[in-house]
């Protein structure tokens, strides 16, 4: 038996072999809360189910509607919570808790881009994010790296995302530090004349709604990824 065969006899390593201190803490607090009757296991299941099935589709729909209807766009900019009702998001009543969570307040602001003004959203103090309308935040949005650099070097950070803005476009970094949550209403790109609401909603990706990308015809979240041949393919 070669040494190579021996390695194969090891039992496979578990996918997660260690539980972090924070996970232990979360489980302990949750179990104590259930035992004390603050909430039930069903409440917890309902809440996690709600949180994990949210996504950016309603916000993309909101942007597409605003592009097509100038009156609706005014409502979006004036009162984002009211505008959200038209895309099926009730900031107050759809939450299992019926008023948002302590970290997701019920105030949405829709930041309207113009050809000379580009908004980008961050939460420098923690990672506030309009979860009811945008789902869970991407991992990079929560990193200190993004949070501390985007307010200081916005052009360089956007360039890292592949978004290089010309000098005549002003950047406005929106730091979501209190009870408002923000999404960006980007400029409708050229080449989308005569498109339907469904077509427009497809090109409004999550990154466009945070502000680190701009919508482009043909670029969608569910588009086909390019498949490139391997550099050193395995020879059978």
């Amino acid at each position, binding site marked *: 038996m070669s040494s190579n065969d021996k390695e194969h006899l090891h039992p496979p390593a578990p996918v997660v072999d260690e539980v972090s201190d924070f996970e232990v803490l979360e489980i302990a607090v949750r179990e104590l809360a259930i035992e004390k009757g603050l909430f039930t296991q069903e409440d917890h299941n309902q809440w996690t189910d709600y949180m994990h099935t949210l996504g950016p589709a309603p916000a993309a729909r909101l942007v597409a509607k605003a592009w097509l209807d100038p009156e609706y766009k005014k409502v979006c900019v004036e009162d984002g919570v009211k505008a959200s009702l038209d895309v099926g998001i009730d900031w107050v009543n759809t939450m299992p808790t019926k008023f948002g969570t302590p970290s997701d307040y*019920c105030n949405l602001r829709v930041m309207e881009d113009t050809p000379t003004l580009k908004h980008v959203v961050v939460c420098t103090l923690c990672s506030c994010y309009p979860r009811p309308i945008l789902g869970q935040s991407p991992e990079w949005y929560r990193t200190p790296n993004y949070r501390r650099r985007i307010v200081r070097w916005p052009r360089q950070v956007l360039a890292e995302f592949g978004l290089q803005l010309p000098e005549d476009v002003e950047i406005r970094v929106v730091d979501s530090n209190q009870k*408002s949550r923000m999404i960006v209403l980007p400029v409708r790109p050229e080449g989308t004349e005569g498109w339907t609401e469904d077509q427009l909603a497809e090109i409004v990706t999550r990154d466009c709604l945070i502000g680190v990308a701009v919508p482009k015809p043909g670029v969608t979240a569910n588009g086909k990824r390019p498949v490139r041949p391997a550099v050193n393919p395995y020879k059978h």
Partner: protein
Amino acid sequence: MSKPHYDREHHVKKATGIGDPQCFKGEAPAARFKVGDKVRIKDLPDLFYTRTQGYTRGAEGTISRLVYESPPAEDESWDNTENVEWFYSLVFDMQELWPNYPEAYAGDTVETEIPEHYLEAV
């Protein structure tokens, strides 16, 4: 001896079905500033908690919108919801906030929200 009673649910009772910050609407005294006013952020001492970023302190900004009424986070974190005040959305020039921000991008700005008691007229 009776156990002291703390009303831990007063916020839940108030906000359910209405929303937060909507549930504080109409409770703040009249707003001291209006859209377009130039204000400076006071560098107030904070005990344990604040949501007024270090980088805004001492900087001058312009009010772009009165956003809502709410107790400041510095109070609310200790369950004190008595001092409801107006919150303002402020726009700061990047050049006001950071040293050596490039002249070519002088139009770049930061927008963020600050409660009234941090603001002083310039």
